[in-house]
């Protein structure tokens, strides 16, 4: 399956089986929104160990690097509310 995820409402195309982080990286999106620490959330380890890429996926907090894309998946910054 391929299609588009919605990064803050904007469609970002993905390839079948691709992770959210991979689709965003190919679209040039590396900064996932400001964390309570002042840093940007972003991919660092790419294998689910650093938790740096936590995003809100249809309202549920998960690692962008581990979660596969599906058509219409809403991706947004985790935001300070989820700290």
């Amino acid at each position, binding site marked *: 399956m391929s299609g588009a995820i919605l990064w803050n409402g904007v469609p970002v195309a993905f*390839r079948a*089986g*691709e992770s959210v982080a991979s689709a965003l990286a190919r679209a*040039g999106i590396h900064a996932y929104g400001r964390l309570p620490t002042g840093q*940007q959330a*972003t991919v660092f380890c*790419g294998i689910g*160990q650093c*938790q740096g890429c936590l995003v809100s996926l249809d309202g549920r907090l998960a690692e962008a690097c581990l979660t596969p894309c599906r058509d219409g998946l809403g991706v947004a910054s985790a935001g300070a509310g989820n700290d």
Partner: protein
Amino acid sequence: MTERRVLVVGAGLAGLAAAVELARAGFASLVVDQAGAPGGAIHRQPLPGVAAHGLPAQRRRWRGLCRAVAASGDRIAILCGHRFAGIDADGVALLAGERSRFMRPAALVLAAGATERVVPVPGWTLPGVTTVGAIQTQLKTGGEAPAGRILLAGSGPLLCAAAAELAAAGNPPVAVVEAGRPFRHAADALALPAGYLAEASAFLARLVVARVPMRCGMRLCGIERRGDALVARAEGGGRHLDFAVDRIGLHDGIRPNGYGAAGTAVPVMLAGDAREALGARAALADGRRVGAALAARLAGRPLPPGTSPVLERERAAQQRLRRIYAHDLGARLAAIGDDTVICRCENRTAGDLRALGDDPTDRELRLRGRFAMGRCQGRFCGEWVRRLRGDAAADAPLGAVRLPALPLPLADLIDAGAPDEDI
């Protein structure tokens, strides 16, 4: 009730090899992996329609293991897209994923591979700066190199390997900044096993053809964002070099990822890189060894030997590699300024660490300093906190693993329901 299964965490070389040995001895196992397909870091499977990667010998090794798994029939079940979130004192394990569930395994094999070490440098938290492993993951699954100018920096043989893979994928890095001086250790290099030498020469040949400069004896001293670019400054041998790039991959070796192996009521064994970071060749042998040892333990038979000729050979080779890439890590750490972030999760700096005084206890490091208290539980700061304080035991974790071992929505715990005897 059916016999309880062994829980194997990680469907890479070590985990699957352990499951195969357990199956041969009559024990069933459930192998969980966080990825969408088995393979682990080395044999990470490409997306549909993407060509397989890796050298022919590596692919043969993987296919052989897959055949052995298939021949084990229903004694091996593989559950992908699920993560091991820890096991409690009573032996109840939590698997998190699409359908989270608790499980009471007969025993636990932790074969979750390695974590990358990255020496902190100012700017390492900026978007676009990742581990080299993250770049390799993108390359292996998507079959294409990340776009834009890439710089690889740190130390160790993975830098050259990743640079060669990027070159083969059509986007060689602008440079490799290597803190060691590997080309000055010819005697050690020539004494490496033939397989290592063949791989290294294939990689170096690609780097020469792609004209990738190797800047040896240099280290990054800072990364800044300037406009659209990440600007990294390297220093060493009395000179400075600036690189304006789009992506930076950092890597300073690997360490075992044994997180989640807290004391529990059932036998726990670590296998492969999660036990001792010796690489792919050793992971297969170690998985077999651990599977056989656990089967003996569960059957009440005497345990087989704790090592094997393959493990001994790979351990010696890794020691040799460490000598080849040796450099003054102490000087790199001493150069870390007070405003450099050490703990990425909570933005705690070297200055915050130094402000805790000369000899803070582990408890003070955690509760006053907040080190190892964030979401990653110290996976990426623990060693540097220890080393900056001059601790001899640099690998000792800062405090016990907190369960769950990864952030989970409460809904996952509620959905998981009651522990199943067998799932």
